[in-house]
């Protein structure tokens, strides 16, 4: 492994930080590369059944979020070649859609997904931290 484990060791002293990286990112756009220790999450840390349930439910919600956006992408893109082929003068439309029109929806889909995925993660963090 290229990563040398002895580097960048950080001594953690004082009270654990309570700010989550998400809220920090939202407020300032600064990126802490080290995250403070929080209360022990024993279920997850010790890989109990409950810990597994947390992970599974997070994976399920994240996969669902991803598949929904993917389905929208497929529905958006898949019919296009057929439409262009079927239309008598599809070339003009093809230039407009592929040259320009398709990019904004792609970026919007990406932003929508990021928001959903981060919310899923925060929900889990809140659930685990506030128990």
């Amino acid at each position, binding site marked *: *492994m*290229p*990563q*040398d*484990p002895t*580097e*960048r*060791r950080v001594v953690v002293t004082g009270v654990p930080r309570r700010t*989550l*990286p*998400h809220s920090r*990112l939202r407020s300032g756009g600064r*990126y*802490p*590369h080290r*995250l*403070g220790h*929080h209360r022990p*999450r024993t279920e*997850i840390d010790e*890989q109990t059944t409950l*810990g*597994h349930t947390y*992970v599974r439910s*997070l*994976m399920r919600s*994240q*996969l669902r979020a*991803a598949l929904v*956006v*993917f389905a929208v*992408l497929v529905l958006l*893109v898949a019919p296009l*070649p*057929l439409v262009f*082929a079927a239309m008598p003068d599809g*070339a*003009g439309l*093809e*230039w407009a859609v*592929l*040259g*320009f029109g*398709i*990019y*904004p929806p*792609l*970026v919007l*889909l*990406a*932003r929508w*997904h*990021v928001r959903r*995925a*981060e919310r899923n*993660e*925060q929900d*889990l*963090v809140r659930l*685990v931290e506030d128990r």
Partner: protein
Amino acid sequence: MNEKYAVPAVALVVVATVFVGAFGLRISRTTSDFYVASRTVGPRLNAAAISGEYLSAASFLGIAGLVLVQGPDMLWYPVGYTAGYLVLLLFVAAPLRRSGAYTLPDFAEARLASKTVRRLAGAFVVGVGWLYLLPQLQGAGLTLNVLTDAPQWLGGVIVAVVVAATVAAGGMRSITFVQAFQYWLKLTALLVPALFLVLAWQGDGAPRHAFDEPASFREQRVVRVDATLDLKLAEPLTVTVSGTVDGRRHDDARIDLPTGTHRVERGTRLTFTEGDPVPVADRGSNGGMSTSLAEGREERPLYATYGLILATFLGTMGLPHVVVRFYTSPHGVAARRTTVVVLGLIGAFYLLPPVYGALGRLYAPELTLTGDADAAVLLLPDRMIGGLGGDLLGALVAGGAFAAFLSTASGLTLAVAGVLTQDVLPARGVRHFRLGTVLAMAVPLAASVLVGGLPVADAVGLAFAVSASSFCPLLVLGIWWRRLTPPGAAAGMLAGGGAALLAVAATMAGYPGTGAFHALLAWPALWSVPLGFLTMVLVSLATPSRVPAETPAILARFHLPEELVGGQPGAASKEIELWRR
């Protein structure tokens, strides 16, 4: 084209690349700096670096050339290159960063605890990387050839030397700065000339028949045919010929060619008059990949289009130089946000090549005959504006093109060298990394000098097909499916990626001439991607006892946000040890 300004522009880009790289060298001291810039690269810098790395010769020159020759269907290339990042964001970005692995082989080993799968993934990384490096070097050769009439191999050699030196000297840290710098350089180099070209087009009365099929000549134009070709005429054409057509020599004679196919020998000069439709060139007789791909497209356009869409949408996530970039994000959330910025940046860039393609159809339609369509972007400023302004804009475009070759080649070299250092060479460490760099660059350089003549964007498309059939199943199933086993992963990569690789090789060798079978081989993604997924799932289900014992812990690591998983986000195997404690 005037080389007075273009050569200094190219030289300036090369010097600036080395200089920015040297700036990174001063702060790149540890091994970790070397490979992943110590994982401290913020999302804006990282997004610009990812975009700079991703926008290759295929994007800068190839798309405009393809659109010029084959029409708007080719716009699916930039759309696919962009949408690939959306798919990567949906299924891969954050878990991949949280896996803590550095290369695709690292990921395979961390997820499946298998040396065999690791080696197989390494072999595919090197294969895809070399397949992708080849067109970069050839694009550089073409650019220098168009600008200065230098021999075709010289540009490739310059790029190879500069890239190997920068990568070996500075590693990832310097590459990050170089790439980010080169994104903005490339955007400027296409945007500024495009604005002037559009103004020139408007001043010309804004002719709109760029979208007509077929393109036609706007003024009298002399075309020199560099390689023997067959002209397909849909209607009779009167043309002035100096040279040999259909086996008969003509000397500046005006002849009538009836409808049908006519053979034009190399070296012939054809003079077309205003309003003549641009005839369709068919290079089937002298081999070459663009022909075979284009023919597959002509016969089965819908199949080819869907094959292209699938390959680019799913192939992006498996490109070695793209994946490495995600390890430099500080955490999973940043990796996701970085990807959104990347989508915006490359989407903005891809608005430009179609402009050049459309203008090329208007002002340089004869490029479809000379076989140098990839040079359209370079030739347009001179053709449409001319004079000092045209020369300066042409120089800017040339500099941007070189930035494209340098940045993509750097990223690919870094990824391939990383695999070679870790899995092939006996010892690791910085000195062997430098040896790996030289090896990573030497093979495609030799191939580009020896083989020559692959059209840039098509060759890149083939690399995407192989990546989509091998790494896409590995990443998606590895991240989302608990029952993946090492034998399943190995079999899936071999079946999907191997089949795609063989199909690509057969197409490049010109094996089956025509027919449905040929289209299947030229655009393999549509069957090889499902084959890869299916094999991986079925073999995994057949070997349930081989599911790695750490799977739940590893998947938890992939998906849990960092704040729930204390400890250093370091290399994957270290993480697993942490988990077991």
